[in-house]
């Protein structure tokens, strides 16, 4: 078990945002988090990344309590890609990706050729090779997201947490990012809005009102009653004649 939460809860000024979430992420799986706006997906991810302090329960990373681990050890095992991380600095793509090595370098350790190789591979994996010298402010939204992903990969994590990485991207880049994430040989937890895209995950967790209300393989979790009760839509399932996979078509709830 890579990452697990037990009875996890977090409140903002007395209002519970996440409550009683117990969840175990398995090694190597792609785990999708879905749920309507405000259901607590982002907060749960931030709790699992150790960026928020739980008000109840806790998170365990590879068996150890996340709260008691030094940030540096956490970062060597777990990387987090936020939704909108921006910078006004004149940094290049290479600078941004090199930041991923921070957790592996102590103040006296020099940058080595090994770090260069890891950064080059991360850039390649995120399909950003050749863009190293571009400045951050000249990049499109999709390119920025790929740089964030490359930075997370340069961290060489065993677990990657992604908060709606396809938000605001055009369809081509959405599919490219998701395809890339699925190919990665690491454990991934990914918050998604598009339920058809979520069908491609190994397992899904459905959040509603801060609680984890369903958990399991996509076909078992995204059922007509769940879509009606949680997401407030009617749905029919279709088979794509191209490859035989299921897709969901949504209708307004009557």
């Amino acid at each position, binding site marked *: 078990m890579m990452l697990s939460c037990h009875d996890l809860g977090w409140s903002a000024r007395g209002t519970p945002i996440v409550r009683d979430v117990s969840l175990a992420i398995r090694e190597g799986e792609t785990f999708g988090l879905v749920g309507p706006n405000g259901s607590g997906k982002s907060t749960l991810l931030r709790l699992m990344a150790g960026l928020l302090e739980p008000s109840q329960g806790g998170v365990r990373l590879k068996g150890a309590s996340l709260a008691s681990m030094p*940030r540096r050890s956490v970062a060597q095992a*777990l990387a987090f890609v936020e939704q909108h991380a921006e910078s*006004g600095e004149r940094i290049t793509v290479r*600078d941004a990706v090199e930041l991923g090595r*921070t957790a592996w370098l102590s103040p006296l350790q*020099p940058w080595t050729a090994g770090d260069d190789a890891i950064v080059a591979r991360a850039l390649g994996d995120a399909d950003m090779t050749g863009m190293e010298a571009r400045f951050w402010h000249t990049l499109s939204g999709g390119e920025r997201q790929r740089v964030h992903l490359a930075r997370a990969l340069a961290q060489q994590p065993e677990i990657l947490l992604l908060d709606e990485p396809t938000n605001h991207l055009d369809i081509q880049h959405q599919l490219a990012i998701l395809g890339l994430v699925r190919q990665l040989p690491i454990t991934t937890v990914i918050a998604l809005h598009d339920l058809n895209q979520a069908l491609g995950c190994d397992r899904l967790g459905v959040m509603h009102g801060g609680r984890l209300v369903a958990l399991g393989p996509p076909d078992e979790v995204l059922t007509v009653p769940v879509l009606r009760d949680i997401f407030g839509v009617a749905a029919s399932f279709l088979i794509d004649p191209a490859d035989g996979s299921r897709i969901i078509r949504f209708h307004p709830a009557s």
Partner: protein
Amino acid sequence: MTLASAGKPRASRLALSGRAALAALLLVAAVCAGAAIGETSIPLPVIAKALANRIFAAGYPLDAIDEGIVWNYRLTRAIVAACCGAALAVSGVVLQALLRNALADPYILGISAGASTGAVTVAITGLGAGAISLSLGAFAGAVLAFLLVAVLARAAGGGVSVQATGQIILAGIAGSQLFNALTSFIITKSANAEQARGIMFWLLGNLSGVRWHDVRLAVPVAILGVAVCIWHRRALDAFTFGSDSAASLGIPVRQVQILLVGTSALMTAVMVSMVGSIGFVGLVIPHATRFLVGVRHARLLPASALMGSVFLVGADIASRTAIDGQVLPIGVITALVGAPGFALILIRGRRGR
């Protein structure tokens, strides 16, 4: 591959020592210029001999007045100016990185104003005595001012860590005004006319009273403070995308923020307690340096320290020579250069967004 990977660090280490030597040379040249140029200009050989006499007891026959001017007056001034420039510039770099705000610097955020209030309180009400307690008073004032500004910014919805850039600057302006008013209040209420005149002159930035005991405080504080910041260069880089991103990159955010803001406040406070609050160095030097060496702190911090030192030694020379027979407060010179620089950053910052 093994050859290439073995060759690269060695080459960069060589380049590093080369750059360090060049930096040291520039610094020494600036300090020597500071000692040579003035109302009566003293030729460089005389300066070299005066230094040799004092440091190695070389026994060159020299005019005692010249030697005294060089050793007790101009050299101390130049060294303290260099320390002060380095400390303020590095404080600016650190605050800009941690607050992710291009306009952050110890002067604008009210840290200098708080340090002035603290120092004036100690000087006039006589809490303790001597240079150390003056610096301590300044440090207490500086920390208090920063906390107040941070709390105010957070209450106004900006927060220290959030992207909203305006609030902390507005809070800084409010804080500066408050602490400047407090300083004036304390001076008016408690100081006699002569004290008041001296303090007013000092508040604008004044290196005239600087002697060797100031050097003994300024040099270690500047070197230690700059070293602490350089030690955290990678942590400062990690704040590029905000504090959450820094945390996920493995930085203990709260700990680093407290340590580095504290270091900046301490450096600023010690410098303010000696030479008064000098504006714009912490703002303009980091930006000029970024323009030259880029945004990565491994280069930006040492380069800013060097630029700040050289700039402030130059500003001190200008303040002594601009008007015949009169010394301008150094803050006047830095503001004359800094205010247009500030305007330029505002305009460029707007275009960048």
